[in-house]
């Protein structure tokens, strides 16, 4: 536990921390890119670069296989820290193409943050100064914090404070979220669960308004994450709480925004590694003292 609480943990990014961050990022990235490659079937709604070039060539089994293979090789090079300027830029391009294909299917998952973090890292590696170890993580955090701030601007611009006042109407979105799961799985109990959650919200309006006001504050002040590692961790924990709250009450998980945030700000795989390491040392000490 000392490792978790010491000053170094909150100030510097260790090598193992950086590697685990990259492994997590690549694992999720590969999953998202693979889903797009498998599920993209049409270019009904050409957007972004797909409105400039004919993206239908990427819909065939061959081209999507090449794209997936390239993503796999790039991930391996990224994790092993090889040719980082070129690799992070190519990951940005693969991400740009994959998620634009998804959006051109009319499915707006808004994975912009995932794509842009790779470009931010390209800039960090081009700068290649003595702060590289911090900047390759801090630049993506800037993009993510900017994204959350944008989400709060969007709410205030569209609804103003009515976003909080009308929050109980989110009960409808809860039923919607749970009915998605019902339609996907065929499990009718999901719909019942949604109706119960919605009923709770309609009967506890003040609590709901308070929770929504808190989440708006978290999003607006996500900028504080850029300050240093400890502020990124604290904001990351608060934003994770917000996402888990949304998942529990609304059955809605905004994967493309949540994953980059938790990986760069909280780095749960490193937390898990630190806890296991601490536990292992504790057991080792116990065995030694008993001998």
């Amino acid at each position, binding site marked *: 536990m000392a490792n978790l609480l010491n000053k170094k943990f909150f100030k510097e990014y260790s090598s193992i921390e950086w590697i685990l961050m990259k492994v997590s990022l690549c694992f999720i990235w590969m999953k998202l890119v693979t889903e797009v490659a498998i599920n993209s079937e049409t270019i009904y709604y050409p957007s972004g*670069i797909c409105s400039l070039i004919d993206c239908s060539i990427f819909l065939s089994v061959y081209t999507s296989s090449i794209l997936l293979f390239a993503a796999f090789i790039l991930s391996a090079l990224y994790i092993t820290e090889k040719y980082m300027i070129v690799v992070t830029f190519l990951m940005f391009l693969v991400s740009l193409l994959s998620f634009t294909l998804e959006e051109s299917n009319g499915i707006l998952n808004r994975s912009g943050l995932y794509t842009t973090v790779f470009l931010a890292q390209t800039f960090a590696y081009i700068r290649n100064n003595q702060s590289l170890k911090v900047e390759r993580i801090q630049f993506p955090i800037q993009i993510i914090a900017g994204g959350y701030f944008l989400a709060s601007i969007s709410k205030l611009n569209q609804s103003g404070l009515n976003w909080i006042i009308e*929050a109980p109407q*989110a009960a409808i979105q809860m039923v919607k979220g749970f009915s998605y799961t019902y339609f996907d799985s065929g499990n009718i109990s999901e719909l019942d669960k949604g109706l119960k959650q919605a009923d709770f919200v309609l009967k506890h309006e003040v609590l709901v308004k308070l929770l929504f006001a808190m989440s708006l504050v978290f999003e607006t002040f996500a900028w504080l994450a850029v300050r240093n590692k400890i502020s990124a961790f604290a904001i990351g924990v608060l934003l994770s709480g917000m996402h888990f709250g949304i998942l529990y009450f609304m059955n809605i998980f905004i994967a493309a925004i949540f994953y980059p945030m938790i990986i760069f700000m909280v780095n749960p795989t490193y937390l898990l590694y630190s806890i296991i390491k601490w536990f292992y040392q504790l057991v080792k000490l116990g065995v030694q003292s008993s001998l």
Partner: protein
Amino acid sequence: MLKKILQKTSFGIAYLLLCLTIGEVHPFTLLPMYNRFPNWAYTFYVSDSRGSLLQNDKYFTIPADGLAHLYYSICEKEGISQGYEKETTAELKKAGEIMMETLVLNPLTPFTGDTLQLHRVCYSINEDYIQSNNIIIYEIVIEK
């Protein structure tokens, strides 16, 4: 001091300004999800002729939330004003046709029935409870 602040925020601010200027063009986005809570929400599902649900996980590559996204994208492209069940039957049929075409393009499991019906469910709050209205917006007969 100012230099330090700029150094720690310049990329984020640049991304923010580009998003606000360019809008919804990947990798830029305005992140408008749930920025308002109107008194309506749509969901879509497919059933056979008896009204039995054909679950997306088993039959289609597009999940239920993706299907709703597709509907909004079609409405935007076709200039259909959406919400509060104000779409006309013709508009719903137009959107439903494109949605169904996309859905049946590459089914995960062959359909055993003879008809596929695309439903739209509209949820809204009536005083203090949630009500729903389910309509069939498009229907196709499967050629065997």
